[in-house]
């Protein structure tokens, strides 16, 4: 029990501190989304049948499987009695909370799934599984974004998009092609760019300017390489819609740059960055409804850039300060 209270206290402190760092507009947006989700779950009427229970098991298992503990974190927690399974269980339990609003029985099912998942040490089993990494024709592995564990998604989704474009052509359905391109590439980039790397990796860059320049150019370069064949294919297969297709290219480039900046603005929390990016997308979508709102999109991007710059500067300069201390000590 003491260990459980300890881990809950720790997670609460971490959560509280992350939330205090979130700018007010995002807090507002996050609250709005949470209230909306809660309202929908409360209103929806889900009967308790074996199908809904199986559904709850699958959904909760999927949520739990998203929890990844690095080897170092696992080893660290394992040296304290019961802390590791309790930490995994707490994470799974928190993810099961929305089920309460939908149905009490389904929530109990989700909690049971969480308990089984954490006691079987499934995150460890999941982590040691070798992920097949298909060779991508577009990216060098050394490039900063593409060292992500999920990088195999890039060629897989790219092939799926190509198949969708061919199907769209056969059925003369342009919307299918453009939605597949936009949606697919968004999922692929979201899974790879957002993945958090070690702080030492970020600190390898010699200065903030160097970091900003390199990450921006690599994002633009890699995104363009990824999208260009798809854009060309759509333009050739649907020549009448060439302008719409071409406009998607800068739009996705901008979204990827925003994704990059959001990631490092809220580094090291990939979860927070992911949620905020999603909120940002919704916010910009709402703004784009009117022409006046559309004018605010660049303002939003600039604000995001400055938050990103501030965080990166503090990360890189912190390391430089410790280096200076070390050099002074050596001189002394």
């Amino acid at each position, binding site marked *: 029990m003491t260990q459980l209270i300890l881990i809950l206290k720790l997670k609460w402190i*971490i959560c509280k501190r992350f939330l205090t760092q979130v700018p007010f507009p995002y807090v507002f947006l996050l609250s709005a989304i949470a209230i909306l989700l809660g309202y929908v779950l409360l209103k929806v009427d889900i009967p308790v049948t074996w199908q809904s229970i199986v559904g709850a098991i699958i959904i909760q298992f999927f949520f739990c499987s998203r929890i990844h503990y690095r080897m170092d974190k696992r080893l660290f927690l394992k040296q304290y009695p019961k802390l590791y399974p309790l930490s995994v269980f707490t994470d799974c339990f928190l993810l099961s909370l929305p089920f309460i609003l939908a149905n009490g029985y389904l929530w109990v099912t989700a909690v049971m799934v969480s308990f089984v998942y954490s006691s079987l040490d499934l995150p460890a089993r999941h982590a040691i599984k070798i992920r097949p990494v298909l060779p991508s024709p577009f990216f060098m592995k050394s490039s900063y974004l593409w060292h992500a564990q999920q990088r195999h998604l890039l060629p897989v989704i790219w092939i799926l998009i190509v198949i969708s474009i061919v199907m769209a052509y056969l059925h003369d359905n342009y919307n299918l092609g453009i939605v597949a391109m936009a949606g697919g590439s968004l999922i692929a980039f979201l899974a790879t760019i957002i993945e958090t790397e070690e702080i030492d990796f970020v600190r390898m860059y010699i200065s903030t300017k160097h970091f900003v320049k390199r990450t921006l150019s690599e994002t633009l370069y890699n995104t363009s390489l990824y999208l260009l064949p798809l854009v060309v294919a759509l333009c050739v297969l649907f020549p009448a819609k060439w302008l719409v297709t071409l406009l998607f290219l800068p739009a996705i480039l901008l979204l990827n740059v925003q994704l990059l900046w959001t990631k490092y603005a809220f580094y090291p929390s990939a979860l927070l960055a992911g949620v905020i990016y999603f909120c940002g997308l919704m916010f910009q979508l709402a703004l784009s409804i009117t022409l006046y709102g559309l004018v605010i999109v660049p303002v939003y991007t600039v604000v995001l850039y400055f938050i990103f710059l501030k965080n990166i500067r503090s990360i890189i300069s912190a390391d430089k300060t410790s280096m200076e201390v070390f050099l002074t000590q050596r001189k002394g």
Partner: protein
Amino acid sequence: MKELIIESLHKSYAKTPVLEKVNLHYRSGVINGIIGPNGAGKSTLLNCIAGYIPYQGKINRKNIKTIGLLTANPYIFPRITALEFIRFSLSAKNCREDTQKLNQLNGLFELPLHKFADEYSTGMLKKLHLLALLLQQNDMLLLDEPFNGLDILSSAYLSELLQELKKQDTLIFISSHDLDHLIKIAGTLTVIENGTAYMKSEQLAEIQKEIEVHAYDKVKSL
């Protein structure tokens, strides 16, 4: 007296064996050094000794109840201060916080304890974990590359602190590439190579000389 007896230890990742037929026996009262080339299985051996990863074979930990492990890349929770981290690790091991001892030890490592630990450099983070481990009074300490990233003075302090712990009957294991350092503090040396581990019976100084001669000959032959 604490003892660690390893019998027929076998560990493999997927189908690649890392450690095979390892039989070793350690006692408290000496510092046990572990050396080997990169990727030989030093960290794996430490993790098996701790019992934190699955393995085949038998590892008997006599009179060992609490284990402290320092990984090569120590983990830190985001957005908590170094002091909070130390308090957390002490509470998690049911240890009382000894402010005086903490201040004495931090007098050596000079860590800004009120700063967020995720903003620490690699060396500072290692010092923080060592500080937490030293305050816990574990029966067995497993240190993976503890001197890596530490400044010269901190390395010297750590060596002295480990010598003191050794006298308090703590079973200590250190894996390191810094042979000079290991030879100065270690009482036994375990070598891991070609998928197995064995203890060197010769004098440690002779081993160092042997390695230096080997390196000299190899470079000269280029």
